[in-house]
């Protein structure tokens, strides 16, 4: 394959070098922490280039044979092991591509830097990138944990950049806490997997055989750990707090890239380290994923803060990705490897898609935030007139996220639905009946995400400006546009050329499951994972057809009906002039959802009384999980703490009594 002609070059070494480059850039930023120009014009663009190189190298590396390296660092007897296989390469490509666009955008975005020293920010940012790459390369438990936690730590510091805002501090705290607990869970899972052989290398774990109960314990510990990072129910509460809190490029990085690390970890542990998943793990994961997705999209629909809305939509998409992973595990457990392969491809594809459109949208919100200083949907509107670039590119992201053909969101949805249809062929009774319902749920989720996206785009970019200040909003500079355009392009390409991408992804399934789609990927333009008559989808033809019809229609209309166009005021029903406050608000747009999915929410309304002189109507929506899970835990801990603090009542004779009793107790014990 192509890589061999490169002679001395080997992808894994290149990756390590690029990681080093990122670290160096970060450190370089520390030398001029306050020099915004230097950081913006040198560090971030260079970081973007490194990202691009990472992307190219990873794409090349997918086809290269698996390689491993050992480093000097690490514990005694346990140097850091690095290994680059196709799975790692796919996510490395995701990381590289994502960081390229985001760094470009950030180069412009941080130009008039926020509170923290930009150099410090650049340091944390690039350490964040490097640690994510390290997570993907890590091939032993220790290296993995170090990389994983460094990732959490760096991102935590990025989240609390504007640390003077109490809410942001709270968000950061929540994030770090849940991340750490998750990490501990992963740690214990590794503790099981190393199975008494004190070799923490992943190779040892692969070769070790795990008795079913231990394997299950390991898997679910890992699922808890990675789920905490992915915002899986019920460990999702940090996500809608932390992602909006961060500066927009960081939010993009968190949502677009970091969350995928959780998917990577789950796949790595379940399919690679444990190797032989049991089918019911898949079922549980599937249920969790779908539940999370529904929860996320329903909450996204009722948000009034644009970044929170996107954060909840991230929860939704990760839920979808995990349901795909669940299907993979289930089919694998049943030994239906081809189906498992398709499910795996769908999962990976969805990860790529989400990386593209979610980064795009978060960056777009960043531009809006910069241009207007407004995050509240209730104060935005009509920006399509003032920020045509952002509006245009964001539209692509919006349509893609809404899962509309022929953009990329639809491809993974299509694949997943196909897989769902196959569960009818599962040997297990009941499963074959329940799981197709999952398809309906998935359809509902996608349709709802379309609803959310219409709300998002319509309220921000369409309609009339809800604040006079919005008229001053302007498009961002060239670098930002470039960053946005990069992702928009990716959305389109991933949408119309799925087969080309799948040919690469297929290598992953070949390595992990030993199953490929074989000749089903022969035609480059027609996607038919099973067989042409079974199901086929040729997005590029599709797109051309659509464009052709539209163009023809437009031409015909122009040619034969060349009547003029007049501009006039919008029809005001004769009430006198409309103003922007008459259009529907974000709350209003969410109202049907609030009504239909009422059981999901904890709703508190402020309803004015008839005699109210200045009537106020407000509705606040909260996450029920606080009441179900977190507050009880908090209360328990508080109670126990209060109990324990009785030990320290300051009376010395009591203390003496403790040691006396301890003595007696121990004496009795040894007697």
């Amino acid at each position, binding site marked *: 394959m192509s890589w061999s002609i490169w002679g001395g070059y080997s992808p894994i070494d290149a990756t390590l070098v690029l990681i080093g480059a990122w670290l160096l850039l970060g450190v370089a930023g520390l030398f001029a922490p306050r020099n915004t120009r230097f950081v913006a014009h040198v560090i971030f663009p260079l970081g973007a280039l490194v990202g691009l190189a990472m992307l190219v190298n990873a794409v090349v590396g997918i086809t290269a044979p698996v390689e491993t390296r050992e480093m000097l660092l690490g514990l005694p007897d346990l140097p850091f092991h690095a290994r680059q296989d196709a799975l790692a390469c796919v996510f490395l490509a995701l990381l590289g591509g994502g960081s390229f666009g985001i760094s470009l955008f950030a180069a412009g975005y941080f130009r008039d830097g926020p509170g923290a020293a930009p150099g410090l920010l650049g340091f944390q940012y690039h350490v964040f990138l490097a640690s994510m790459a390290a997570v993907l390369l890590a091939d032993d438990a220790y290296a993995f944990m170090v990389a994983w936690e460094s990732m959490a730590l760096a991102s935590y510091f990025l989240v609390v950049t504007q640390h003077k805002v109490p809410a942001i501090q709270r968000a950061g705290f929540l994030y770090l806490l849940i991340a750490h607990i998750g990490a501990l869970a992963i740690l214990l899972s590794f503790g099981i997997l190393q199975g008494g052989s004190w070799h923490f290398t992943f190779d040892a774990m692969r070769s070790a055989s795990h008795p079913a109960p231990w394997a299950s314990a390991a898997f679910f510990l890992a699922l808890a750990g990675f789920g905490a990072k992915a915002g899986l129910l019920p460990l999702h509460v940090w996500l809608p707090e932390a992602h909006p809190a961060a500066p927009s490029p960081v939010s993009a990085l968190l949502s677009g890239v970091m969350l995928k690390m959780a998917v990577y970890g789950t796949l790595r542990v379940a399919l690679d380290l444990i190797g032989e998943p049991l089918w019911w793990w898949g079922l549980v994961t599937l249920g969790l994923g779908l539940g999370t997705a529904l929860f996320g999209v329903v909450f996204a629909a009722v948000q009034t803060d644009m970044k929170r809305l996107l954060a909840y939509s991230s929860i939704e998409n990760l839920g979808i990705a995990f349901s795909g992973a669940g299907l993979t595990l289930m089919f694998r457990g049943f030994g239906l490897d081809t189906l498992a392969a398709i499910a795996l491809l769908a999962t990976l594809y969805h990860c790529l898609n989400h990386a593209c459109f979610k980064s795009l949208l978060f960056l777009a919100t960043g531009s809006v935030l910069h241009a207007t200083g407004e995050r509240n949907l209730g104060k935005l*509107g*009509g920006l*399509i007139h003032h920020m045509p670039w952002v509006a245009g590119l964001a539209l692509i992201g919006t*349509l893609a996220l809404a*899962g*509309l*053909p022929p953009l990329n969101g*639809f491809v993974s949805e*299509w694949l997943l639905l196909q897989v769902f*249809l196959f569960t*009818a062929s599962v040997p297990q009774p009941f499963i074959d*009946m329940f799981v*197709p*319902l999952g*398809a*309906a749920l998935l*359809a509902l989720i996608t*349709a709802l995400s*379309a*609803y959310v*996206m*219409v709300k998002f*785009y*319509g*309220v921000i970019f*369409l*309609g*009339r400006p809800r604040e006079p200040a919005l008229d001053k909003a302007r498009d961002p500079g060239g670098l930002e546009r470039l960053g946005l355009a990069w992702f928009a392009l990716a959305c389109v390409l991933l949408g119309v050329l799925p087969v080309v991408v799948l040919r690469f992804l297929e290598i992953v399934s070949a390595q992990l499951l030993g199953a490929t789609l074989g000749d089903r990927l022969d035609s480059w333009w*027609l996607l038919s994972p099973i067989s*042409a008559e*079974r*199901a*086929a*989808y*040729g*997005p590029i033809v*599709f797109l051309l*057809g*659509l464009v052709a*019809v*539209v163009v023809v*229609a437009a031409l015909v*209309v122009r040619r034969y*009906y060349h*009547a*003029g*166009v*007049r501009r*006039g005021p*919008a*029809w*005001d029903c004769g009430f006198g002039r*409309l103003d922007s406050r*008459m*259009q*529907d608000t974000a709350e*209003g*747009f969410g109202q*049907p959802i609030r*009504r239909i999915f009422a059981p999901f929410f904890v709703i508190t309304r402020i309803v004015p009384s008839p005699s109210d002189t200045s009537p106020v109507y407000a509705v606040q929506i909260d996450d029920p999980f606080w009441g179900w899970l977190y507050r009880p835990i908090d209360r328990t801990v508080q109670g126990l703490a209060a109990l324990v603090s009785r030990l320290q009542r300051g009376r010395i004779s009591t203390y003496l009594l403790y040691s006396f009793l301890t003595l007696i107790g121990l004496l009795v014990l040894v007697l």
Partner: protein
Amino acid sequence: MIVAATNQLLELALALLAAPLLLGWVNKCRAWLQNRSAPSIWLPYRNLHKLFHKDAVLADNASLLFRAAPYVVFGSMVVAAAIIPSVGTALPSAYVADAIALVGLFATARVFMSLAAMDIGTAFGTLGARREMMIGFLAEPALLMVIFTASLIASSTSLVAISTAFVTRELAIYPSLAFAAIAFMLVLLAENARIPVDNPATHLELTMIHEAMLLEYSARHLALMEWAAALKLFNYAAIGIALFVPWGIARGDAGYVELLAGAPILALKLLSFGAGLALIETLSAKLRIFRAPEFLATAFLFAVLGMLVHLLLGS
């Protein structure tokens, strides 16, 4: 090959031309059933013609999206028409987009229509968009379930393959399909803004859904939207026919004769469909907007029952 091409063109032409006619026919039947003096069946054509010749008036703050939306909506409906087998199953285009893509196509049209409705920033537009999207996310899963039931039977998600399978296999009773058909009918009513969910003939703001989104459109844009709506109805009818009463649809290997024979059969089916639709609309009363979820939940329920019945009885 030639046959396929002709088939394709025939279907497109048929859809484009017959769609307004179907609309006219439905309106005529409704008028008859309601003892009104019926408008001409050709009225929709006259409307389109008139609208196309008018000068367009755009709101001051209408953006490019607002002007582009009608073309996109119209285009997606045409493409949809191109992949639904109505007279013959030898559709080349049907191979590049299966039923799921078809649903996606409808969703695209819906999203663009809603976005365009929000563009002007009037109360009606947003209201209509909101309601349309609500109906949409409720109807889409039900529609998919219907299609899945069929595709589980035919073990394919391509409409052409499904209808072919149904035509070729010996006549048998599929309880699952019966459930699916009911579900489909309900979805059709909702998706095409018919009573009891919406009323195409009214502009009362409390009840408007579809019309609310078109309020700001005029002239050729409005014409395209109306035509697209007609096409949508036609497409749904065609889907229903292809799924549930496919007999008479020419096979893939058929010649011109079957094709030409297919057309009148289709016409017959469409006429009866129109009459039935009109009957339903006359017999039922408009629902409150927040009854619509229950209405569609029923549809979803039927669809799911259909699928379960199939999985259980294997029929």
